[in-house]
């Protein structure tokens, strides 16, 4: 029975740890934690595409950016309330991802990686050059703050509490989904496409669904990012960020929601902790990635797993 409740346990754990940290951390660390929370939501999304369905997508940051830009443009140029702009941005991004997913997902492996990378590069070029809409490389400043019951959600501490609610909800939903028949269908489509079809699974639909779900989480992260930083520019959503999401998921543990969160938090804080290394950080980062791929191919979460991870099925019957 334990695993039925675990999505709620995960949400509770995120809220508890996050709220405790929101009390004790300094302003600077709170800012980093806010970025971690937002990034974690994006990486949980990336886990749907890469961890479950095995889609090597390197365009995830474009979906984060698309949503952030939608929020920014709707709230600044047309004066929408952020509360109306956020759902609009998420819906628009998901729709776009599904539409582009159908042709893109005919590609596999490295071809899909290259095509999605191209999508991210195109997004950067468009946002950097469509001056009238996006302000080009100057970006869009002055995105209005969210207001709740007449109070602005301002300051790192309050924004963190707000962001944690989103992270907890997304993480719990992702975990519940992963253990449902739909999650299983995604894993099946990755493990063996032909056997999946022969088990009655519509592989194309499952892939597009995984892609759209990953974009949905990216969109939530992008909207929160726009509301947190309140100034966005093209380089916030370059393809380097897509590759960072991939690195975070691999460090944390692909296929795992907890791993996605661990990886996002660790790789957001680590460059700050190791600032004294200067450019040598890149060498350290490379060595760490290699070490993880060799010694912990299933990521940091595998450190916490019990030796016999395949006992879950019994507990649930």
């Amino acid at each position, binding site marked *: 029975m334990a695993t039925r409740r675990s999505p709620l346990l995960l949400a509770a754990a995120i809220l508890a740890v996050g709220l405790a940290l929101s009390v004790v951390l300094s302003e600077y660390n709170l800012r980093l934690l806010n970025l971690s929370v937002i990034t974690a939501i994006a990486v949980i999304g990336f886990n749907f595409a890469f961890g479950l369905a095995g889609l090597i997508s390197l365009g995830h940051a474009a979906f984060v950016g698309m949503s952030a830009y939608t929020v920014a443009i709707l709230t600044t140029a047309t004066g929408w309330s952020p509360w109306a702009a956020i759902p609009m941005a998420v819906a628009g991004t998901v729709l776009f991802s599904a539409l582009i997913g159908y042709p893109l997902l005919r590609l596999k492996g490295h071809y899909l990686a290259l095509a999605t990378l191209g999508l991210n590069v195109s997004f950067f070029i468009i946002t950097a050059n469509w001056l009238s809409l996006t302000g080009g490389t100057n970006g869009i400043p002055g995105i209005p703050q969210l207001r709740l019951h007449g109070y602005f959600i301002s300051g790192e501490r309050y924004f963190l509490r707000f962001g944690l609610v989103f992270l907890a909800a997304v993480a719990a939903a992702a975990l519940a989904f992963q253990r449902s*028949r739909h999650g299983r269908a995604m894993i099946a489509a990755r493990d063996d496409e032909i056997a999946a079809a022969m088990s009655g699974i519509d592989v194309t639909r499952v892939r597009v669904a995984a892609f759209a779900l990953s974009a949905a989480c990216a969109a939530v992260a992008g909207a929160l990012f726009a509301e947190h930083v309140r100034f966005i520019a093209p380089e916030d959503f370059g393809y380097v960020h897509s590759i960072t999401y991939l690195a975070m998921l691999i460090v944390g543990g692909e296929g795992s929601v907890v791993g996605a969160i661990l990886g996002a938090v660790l790789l957001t804080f680590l460059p700050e902790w190791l600032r004294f290394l200067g450019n040598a950080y890149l060498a350290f980062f490379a060595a760490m990635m290699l070490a993880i791929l060799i010694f912990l191919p299933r990521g940091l979460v595998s450190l916490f797993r019990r030796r016999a991870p395949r006992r879950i099925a019994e507990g649930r019957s």
Partner: protein
Amino acid sequence: MKLLQACGVTKVYGGLQALTDVDLTVMPGESVAVIGPNGAGKSTFLNVLTGLTPPTTGRVLFDGTDVTKLATHKRVRLGIGRTFQHGRLFSRMSVLENVMTAAETCRRGGDGAPRETAMRVLERMGLAAQAAEAVGSLSYGQRRMVEMCRVLAGKPRVLLLDEPAAGLNSGEVEQLVERLAALREEHSVAVVLIEHNMGMVMRFAERILVLNFGSTIAEGTPEEIQSDPAVLTAYLGEGYSHADL
């Protein structure tokens, strides 16, 4: 009522004629074996029946409707199940989860929960004790049985088996034949079998289709096939009048 029907199935790969005008009719509950030397087109024929490979010409009918253009997963949901020559499992799932996938997609009105359906199939096939294990820890014979269970969890009306006895020891083959016979008896599941183990073919099949270089060279009962001159030539070369197939 014919359950599964292939009409004039032809498959051409570039200059290679993999299948030429192959016909097959399977009645409910019937057991048919498709035999032939390596490269005769047997697996290609199963691929056409299941929709993994579109035929160049010809049609496939299931339960009276034309399914030639129907996607694989839809045919599976209609009741065409299939196992593969080397067994294909979802390596990141437990035994039970593997079997549940098909129970979930092929669930029809009146079926129980997929988990219970899957457990029942595992019990029946003698794998209940391994339900929670990772598929990677199983023996080859058990892995093939798990694949069979996954197909059965989808409640197929016709079962296409690609060399199910390959790699099994004689005891396991014996068990497999018994279980398949029971399935036919109780649920009138039809079985189409590709097999090189002639002992199993002769004991299990009511009818045999012999392919060679993509064409049907003979079709008939096991007795007829064993003395068919064209079959003997294909298997043994010219000059034999009898073989202990």
